[in-house]
């Protein structure tokens, strides 16, 4: 297999990490929504934690994307 094709396949495989990002973000927002529907008055207090959790979950997915880009553009 020539290296250029292997690079493209490797980049595609590394992008599968974004599945984790999707699941994580969905979990966080889903839990926030179910909590907010049970106790609406407590929801604004946790909004900051919601945004923090979303960014942290997205970050791990983006680490996988960075690996894909490194494979494509550095090697």
């Amino acid at each position: 297999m020539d290296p250029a094709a292997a690079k493209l396949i490797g980049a595609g495989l590394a992008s599968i990490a974004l599945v984790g990002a999707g699941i994580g973000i969905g979990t966080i927002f889903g839990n926030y929504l179910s909590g907010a529907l049970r106790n609406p008055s407590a929801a604004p207090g946790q909004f900051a934690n919601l945004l923090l959790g979303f960014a942290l979950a997205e970050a791990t997915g983006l680490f996988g994307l960075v690996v894909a880009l490194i494979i494509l553009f550095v090697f």
Partner: protein
Amino acid sequence: MPNPMHQFEIKRFIELDLFGLDVSFTNASLFMVIAITLISFLTIWGMRGRALVPTRMQSIAEISYEFVANMVRDNVGSDGQKYFPFVFTLFMFVLFCNMLGMMPYSFTVTSHIIVTFALAAIVFIGVTVIGFIKHGFGFLKFFVPSGVPTALLPLLVVIEIISYLTRPVSLSVRLFANMMAGHTMLKVFGAFVVGLGYLGGWAPLAFMVAFTGLEILVAFLQAYVFAILTCIYLNDALHMHH
């Protein structure tokens, strides 16, 4: 299809050389200068009137001050107030650099790993030094959580140290990856709009409008997350609860 990575190229405007090091004034430097100018304009000129009932610009300056001050007070506590100027500078710089990148034909300073790594390294080294100054060598007790059976302790200390050392990596890569991936996607969908022409270009255009809105939100959110994680790490160094 045009290359979406061309937007991240560094172009030198004024070539400068300091003892063999390349210190040219580049497009990155230009946008950092623009960001600092805008922040200074907002805070200094906006607060010029010092009215009790604020004008619009004074209101924006006061809101951003209060936002970061509340963040520092909630996450670091009352003895963290002396680090407020640092966190405020960090937050405003990252926010303005991210937002300036949303303008067409501009350059996103924070989409380069060296910029975000420099910021994260300052935070990490600063927080570690603050921890050692405040607690001396007792700061190393931070890596030994309480209530752990002694058999597990060596393994757990190693894991704690490794996870502490990945903090600057995760802090810098989070901001860098969000900015670079966002702007690459904007360029790619822009190419789709042009490529599909007058008949089909409306669909990617509608998506681009929504996605640009999302990117503006992400620009603000990433600045907020960078600042709040700085506050959390500062809290860890000052008050070593785990």
